[in-house]
């Protein structure tokens, strides 16, 4: 109780301070003028990341990469920004995107990133960015959906990008706001591919899934994964073990869950659990050290660098590209409030390069590629909700 009061008082103080600051200096007030006129001065672009925080090697880091490294051409080092080299940018690009490397030019923007330590931080953080003159404010994660709705309604002159959710009203109905662009990903399509690979790789015919909090978003990962396993190894799909940790920031929980799955014979484990997933990867790494041939599949960003020998592949979700595109549209004065739905076809989700070696690798990758083509061409509809899973049938590649 005392803590809550303190936090409230602090927040109120902070808001009061920033408001005052905005009123006094004449230059501070952000006029919703055409973005191009101010192009000489870097445009402030705000980003609020969810409680998973910076350094989750995953979802938040992908958005940060899009904003800081790609759009602003900066690297975050030792608590401040340094200029990034073109080489840094090239290294951060996965193989299937190398063709767009030339188009990723640094934009005249200034990133302003706020981390959220608790759910109560979202609205104050968004407001703080708007007050500081952010021309575009990005809410990274479905947890920010309500906060973005509130802020967007209170600040009609400000522009927002909401990732992983549509704007929902109090009744849960989709709401369209004239100043919010929303992005949804077809995570099930990307998860389908890694699931297909997991089915081809497993030797024990047991694969696992570790989710964070069980919400429709994370279920899409699970359902797609299940569908993929079912396509390449139906018997493993029957016995697929799926456990949710109930959080996105408790790596100890992730590790415990993964240890349990490994003890029960799983040899490929896909996680969609934010920072908990670091614990999953840790458990796989430790199991490999004792001689077990198990793999983890990373999520959102290419997580191969966390444990190169233990990561089979990663299900990439290119929030980085979406963030970059929004910043570019802003700079070009073309930012519009649209509702995007992006999948394999748009290259917005993908399977990361497979860097480990296993018997039959080339053949397995061919099969996965064939499946990818079928999804892109529309021959194959990947289910996204558990109810559709039972009836899903796809011919093995």
């Amino acid at each position: 109780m005392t803590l809550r009061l303190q936090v409230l008082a602090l927040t109120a103080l902070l808001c009061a301070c920033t408001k005052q600051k905005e009123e006094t200096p004449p230059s501070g007030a952000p006029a919703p003028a055409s973005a191009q006129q101010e192009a000489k001065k870097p445009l402030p672009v705000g980003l609020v990341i969810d409680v998973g925080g910076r350094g989750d090697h995953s979802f938040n880091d992908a958005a940060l990469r899009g904003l800081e490294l790609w759009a602003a051409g900066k690297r975050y080092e030792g608590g401040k920004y340094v200029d990034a080299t073109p080489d840094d940018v090239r290294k951060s690009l996965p193989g299937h995107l190398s063709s767009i490397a030339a188009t990723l030019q640094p934009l005249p923007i200034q990133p302003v990133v706020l981390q959220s330590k608790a759910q109560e931080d979202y609205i104050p953080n968004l407001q703080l960015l708007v007050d500081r003159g952010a021309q575009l404010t990005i809410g990274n994660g479905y947890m920010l959906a309500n906060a973005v709705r509130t802020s967007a309604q209170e600040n009609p002159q400000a522009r927002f990008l909401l990732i992983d959710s549509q704007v929902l009203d109090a009744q849960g109905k989709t709401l369209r706001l004239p100043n919010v662009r929303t992005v949804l990903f077809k995570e099930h399509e990307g998860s389908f591919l890694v699931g297909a690979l997991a089915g081809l790789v497993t030797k024990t015919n047991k694969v696992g899934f570790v989710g964070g909090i069980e919400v429709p978003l994370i279920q899409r990962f699970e359902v797609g994964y299940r569908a993929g396993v079912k396509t390449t190894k139906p018997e493993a799909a029957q016995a697929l073990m799926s456990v949710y940790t109930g959080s996105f920031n408790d790596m100890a929980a992730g590790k415990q869950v993964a240890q349990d799955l490994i003890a029960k014979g799983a040899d490929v484990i896909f996680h969609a659990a934010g920072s908990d997933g670091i614990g999953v990867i840790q458990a796989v790494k430790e199991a490999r050290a004792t001689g077990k041939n198990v793999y983890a599949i990373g999520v959102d960003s290419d997580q191969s660098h966390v444990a190169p020998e233990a990561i089979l592949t990663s299900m990439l979700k290119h929030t980085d590209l979406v963030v970059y595109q929004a910043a570019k549209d802003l700079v070009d004065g073309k930012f519009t409030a649209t509702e995007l739905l992006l999948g394999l076809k748009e290259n917005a989700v993908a399977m990361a390069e497979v860097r480990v070696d296993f018997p039959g690798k080339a053949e397995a990758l061919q099969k996965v590629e064939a499946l990818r083509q079928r999804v892109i061409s529309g021959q194959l509809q990947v289910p996204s909700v558990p109810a559709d899973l039972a009836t899903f049938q796809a011919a093995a590649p």
Partner: protein
Amino acid sequence: MLEILHRLLFATLDAAPALVFAALGAVLSERAGVVAVGVEGMMRVGAFCAAVAALVMPTPAAVGIGMLAGAALAAVHGFLCIRWRSDQVVSGIALNLVALAGGTFLLETHFGPNGTPPIQQLQPLHWPELASVPLLGALSGHAAPTYLALLLPLLLQGMLTRTPLGLRLRAVGDKPHAVATLGLSVPALRWGAVLGGGLLAGLGGAVLSTTVLDRFEQHTPAGLGFMALAAMVFGRWTPLGAFAAAAFFAFGNALRIGLASSAPGLLDVVPQGVLLALPYLLTLLVLTFQGQRNSTPASLGVPYEQESR
């Protein structure tokens, strides 16, 4: 069946130590009358310092550094609460906030947000002669902290209930003026308990970054310190009780995870949310049968003033 029990036991023993140490630290401090809300912060400091120290020295020594770091933060708490008689809850919360923000700041400025570089973990110890015995075999294959976590509650319980020092520590938490009339220093005893509690909480944190993970990760300890406080209350402020409660929490968690993975069909009947709440439901259930005896130290949270009555 035996196989399942074995796995549950193994997972419990693997996950419990950090919670056990922190709960013991809280018990020690609170039995002497000083509120231990700052356990979470002490764990975080311990975890951070142990991981950083392990970059340059052998991991067991680094765990010692982590303990000292926990004690250092406890010393701040002691200074505020014993020397200046400030509000113990506020001081503890302030320390938690400082540790949370300070840990993130130091991590990002020195190592980047992705956590410290990996360190040498504490290696699991194997007891081949035990491993073949059913159930007891679950004792084999853990790192050193697990065995310490089994031993320490007994030692601490013995100390608190069977030695003059233990009697005095308990008395300081219940009736400090009575201790003072015997010519003993109340502040000195409380200082000892607070620093000891800090050492233990630091150890709990160090276990997280050297055994559970092989680095300091920015969310550590993710609320475990508050679970430790719950274990302390649940265990009625006794070391053995706190140990049992901590082990019970860990067991409940292992049970939930095991249920979800070994009975996939169960999830069609029982929603995940119910399973996630299982450890807490079990706790509620046990609390219902626990009765109502009040075992809070009588002077808990009351600053000691020589002149007052």
